């Protein structure tokens, strides 16, 4: 593993960027979380960059820390972080010129026991598609496709997963794409969520959130990593992401110029599952 080498390169680069005034903040990781997890940290002082770390426990998606502050921001970006930056730029949430992407070639993160995380096992993008500086790792071979996962679409599976959920909204907080100022689940009028939510309300939340993320998921697995109840609900968005890719040839965060799938249309879009439709439009 050459995390140390990559770390030294990143730290030197961040120091230079901060000292030159090219950026006023660097969003990266430092040590200090529980179970060896690295913590997101905003570096503003070149001397402070000594604290910067890069290891196999840099799990969180850093995109929540990009907005706010003066001047340009640099981000120490795993491929999924970089994809999220690109997705946010194509959704007009960030401006390309404000963000300096320090992309890192990444071989996947591990959990507290040292086992690879499920999202990282499935991951097929281990080099950031867009970056300003790339910190390469010659030991990491280029991936062509991640591990395929079978998708059980039975109601039993959905019920089993949803019954574990306690509606704590950690997945929403961890997600780069959930940036609504007021989530529909938090609204009082109309009140989507009753005081005592039942199965149906959990279904509303998960289905609603998945629809909001349709064609926007960057497959970082932050939702799953943040879940305290071990809910594996990511299979919903995985299925939707694959479906959108197949139907509209779009993958979030891969191309700065591509228009997000759900914000565009074509006259000949296929009508899969429509009444009276043959599945091939008209």
């Amino acid at each position, binding site marked *: 593993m050459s995390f140390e080498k990559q770390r030294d390169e990143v730290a030197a680069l961040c120091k230079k960027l901060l000292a030159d005034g090219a950026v006023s903040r660097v969003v990266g990781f430092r040590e200090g979380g529980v179970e060896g997890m690295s913590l997101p940290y905003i570096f503003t002082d070149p001397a402070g960059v000594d604290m910067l770390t890069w290891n196999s426990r840099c799990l969180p998606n850093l995109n929540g820390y990009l907005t706010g502050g003066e001047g340009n921001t640099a981000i120490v970006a795993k491929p999924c972080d970089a994809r999220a930056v690109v997705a946010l730029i194509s959704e007009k949430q960030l401006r390309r010129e404000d963000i300096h992407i320090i992309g890192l070639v990444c071989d996947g993160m591990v959990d507290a026991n040292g086992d690879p995380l499920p999202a990282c096992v499935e991951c097929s993008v281990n080099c950031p598609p867009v970056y300003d500086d790339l910190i390469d790792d010659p030991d990491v071979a280029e991936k062509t496709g991640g591990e395929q996962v079978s*998708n059980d*679409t*039975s*109601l*039993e*599976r*959905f*019920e089993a997963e949803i019954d574990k959920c306690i509606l704590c909204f950690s997945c929403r907080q961890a997600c780069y794409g959930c940036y609504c100022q007021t989530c*529909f689940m938090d609204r009082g009028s109309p009140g*989507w969520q*009753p005081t*005592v*939510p*039942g*199965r*149906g*309300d959990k*279904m*509303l939340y998960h*289905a*609603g959130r*998945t*629809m909001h993320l*349709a*064609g926007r998921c960057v497959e970082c697995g932050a939702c799953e990593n943040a879940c305290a109840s071990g809910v594996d609900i990511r*299979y*919903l968005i995985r*299925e*939707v992401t694959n*479906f*959108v890719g197949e*139907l*509209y040839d779009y993958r979030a965060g891969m191309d700065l110029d591509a228009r997000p*799938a*759900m*914000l565009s*249309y*074509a*006259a000949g*879009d*296929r*009508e*899969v*599952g*429509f*009444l*009276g*439709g043959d599945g091939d439009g*008209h």
Partner: protein
Amino acid sequence: MSQAKAQDPAPHTREWTPRIVAFLCNWCSYAGADLAGTGRNQYPPSVRVIRVPCSGRINPIYIIKALVDGADGVMVSGCHPGDCHYLAGNFYARRRFTVLKRLLTTMGLSPDRVHFTWVSASEGARFAGVVREVTEKVAALGPSRIMKGGDMDEL
């Protein structure tokens, strides 16, 4: 004639009939439903119509919420692609509904609970036909159990 009459359920029976929420766009499908009425096209009284400005105005959450709150089925209809009053609303809606249906089936819901189609203002007979078809499909599935706090044994 007498045979058809014998098949009709007697009025005021307590027999279960599906409750279907229908989201219809103001400009085409709602007018189509109106025409079905004016033209005396018979269709089952199972739909509860909600008029929306455009099929593009229908938040997928509305459809999920209808199912969660006890609708046996949901049907959505807008202007035919290319005929949208707001030019492109139904094009966006089409992508949304296509994805939503895939999501709902991934969750284990029967694909026959939700139906999307296009009905123009001149297609009164088609509207009646669509309602008949949707009602038949939902009736075949039986009552929905996706209730607030209830169990979802039979979706």
